[in-house]
């Protein structure tokens, strides 16, 4: 039997890009552009319908490993300024998280300050050893890729 649990967490990231807000925003709004940096390399299904009420889906996972499904719905879009969306993550047939994300784009001279905030709810995570192992492993892999992008 599944032990029910809910964990809440949030994080914020901030970056400054040497491009005007319109260009940075466009990289989030155009499906081909967004797929290129959001999904990266590897096999995956990706779709984006960038409008309020529109959906974004991304299905993928490690070779031979579990399939993860990301599904977002856009709640608010102000071109060049702001994007708000909610998304769910499923691992195979199990819902593992529900999150709300906000992205803001602010001009800084000729550059753009991008701020990303995520509020997440993580569901029924703590009860399975193999799940825990994969959690640690995926964290390791994400960190490894981050530290050494060439290896990923």
């Amino acid at each position, binding site marked *: 039997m599944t032990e029910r649990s809910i964990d809440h967490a949030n994080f914020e990231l*901030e970056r*400054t890009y*040497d491009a005007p807000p319109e260009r940075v925003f466009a990289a989030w709004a155009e499906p081909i552009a967004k797929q290129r*940096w959001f999904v*990266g390399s590897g096999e995956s299904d990706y779709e984006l319908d960038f409008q309020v009420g529109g959906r974004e889906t991304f299905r993928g996972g490690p070779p031979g490993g579990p399939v993860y499904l990301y599904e977002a719905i856009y709640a608010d879009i102000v071109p060049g300024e702001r994007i708000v969306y909610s998304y769910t993550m499923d691992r195979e047939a199990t819902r593992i998280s529900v999150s709300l994300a906000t992205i803001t784009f602010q001009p800084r001279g000729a550059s753009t300050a991008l701020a990303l905030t*995520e509020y*997440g709810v993580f569901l029924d995570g703590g009860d399975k050893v193999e799940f825990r*192992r994969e*959690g640690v492993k995926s964290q390791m892999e994400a*960190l490894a890729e981050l530290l050494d992008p060439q290896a990923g």
Partner: protein
Amino acid sequence: MLNQQSQIGPVFQALADPTRRELVERLSSGPASVSELAGPLPMSLSAVVQHLGVLEAGGIVRTKKVGRVRTCQLDPDALDVARSWIAGQQAAWEHRLDRLGAFLTETEPTSPPGGR
């Protein structure tokens, strides 16, 4: 350049090494003694002890000495799957935002004379 990584700072540092990541992966399936951990690794016992020291300082691993055997296990907080998941999401976003920067550079329109 703004680049906030404060929340995963110490953990990030401790895991910035493939050997330490291998040790953490091994410990994610259960506690082990230092010699059990060192066994499959192509390095001296004292090098492994040093790596474990960094992981212990980073709050990822706890060690306990009983008699002559030092046993290591992951800190329960480091094993917290929600925290792992969130740190993983955050790390994934860091990586994506790097790729967004690279994408913007690659697709930059030709600059007018006199630069930016």
